[in-house]
């Protein structure tokens, strides 16, 4: 299974502050358990925020959609 990280270690790896991570978590942008998928998700969120100057509402909408697309693709693959 994926290795899990504490909030502090996650902040250190990604360079995102603990407060921001907690905020993302509260808004459902990242999962409550911190593993490699969370690191990927955080990097994606930060990329969208910095490069596309996206606000929290935009981030919620887009990450929700991206996650749904990924889930559906996996579902489609499993049904083949």
């Amino acid at each position, binding site marked *: 299974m994926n290795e899990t990280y504490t909030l502090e270690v996650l902040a250190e790896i990604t360079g995102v502050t603990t407060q921001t991570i907690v905020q993302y978590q509260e808004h459902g942008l990242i999962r409550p358990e911190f593993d490699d998928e969370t690191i*990927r998700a955080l990097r994606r969120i930060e990329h969208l925020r910095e490069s596309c100057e996206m606000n929290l509402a935009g981030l919620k909408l887009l990450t929700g959609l991206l996650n749904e697309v990924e889930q559906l693709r996996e579902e489609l693959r499993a049904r083949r």
Partner: protein
Amino acid sequence: MPAQFKDYYTTLGVSRDATPDDIKKAFRKLARQYHPDTAKDKKTAEEKFKEINEANEVLGDPEKRKKYDTLGARWNDAGGFEPPPGWQQADAGAGAGAGGQGQEFHFGGTGFSDFFEQYFSGGSRYGFPQGFEEETPGGAARQGRARRGHDIEGDILVTLEEAMHGTQRPISLQTVNRQTGAVETHEFQVRIPPGATDGRRIRVPGQGEPGRNGGAAGDLYLRVRHASHPDFTTREADLHHELDVAPWEAVLGAEVIVPTLDCSIKLRLPAGTEDRQQLRVRGKGLPKGKTGERGDFFVTINVVLPTQVSDDERKLWEQLRATSTFNPRA
């Protein structure tokens, strides 16, 4: 430079207008023939097994097949394979090789060919299609700032046996340094943990794109793709198997020896088992974690009717018809 074109139709031995069912059947037959566990010449079989898996990965997926057909429409032209004009890699959700703009990267040891990686792998940065760059209008002002390298994503083909027991795989990743233009090859070992499920991403820290102006390197994410197995499919940690049974085995019940990934088990079919009924054997799937817990093994019953019967058998079926009160249309 586009990677060498792969003729997936020839690999699977099907025509270009084959139905999805034809493709599935052709693949299963070849997978059984070349599966490394059952083939005689293991080394040749392994290469062939990878090739047919790759072909199935593309042709077995209607979306990818459509892209492949568009991409390969002119593959046989004189002068070698070139993607059609206007072909956008971003459309393929592919990223390996940025088509002449920006950074190129190239994997080795993932079990997929360069052609697959260039056009069909999940390879991309941040899971976005290529071209999703962060060159914002303010970008120029930020020049000279230390910046972390991009993350790179790709697919890695993992057999179910590897997923069962875990393994180490040597991977090489070739990148072009954006600043110096030099081609850099990194070789490293990637640990596939026991129970690596299909779709799971394995993070390899610091093996992504090099950082700029002293920034840290990005990470590499390898998405696990289970190689198709002739006998089993997976769903998360659960293992699925289709078992062919005779009508009398289903009606009267039977004991059947069934293979799993690491042993054979004796499966008791209860009397009155129905076609497509699913039987579950707990704890015979893939490992779920370090706890030793395992997924389940699901057996789907497939009742097969005899198409040719001997004279004696025919008499018995006739006797059954005369005696039986069973009416399937009642």
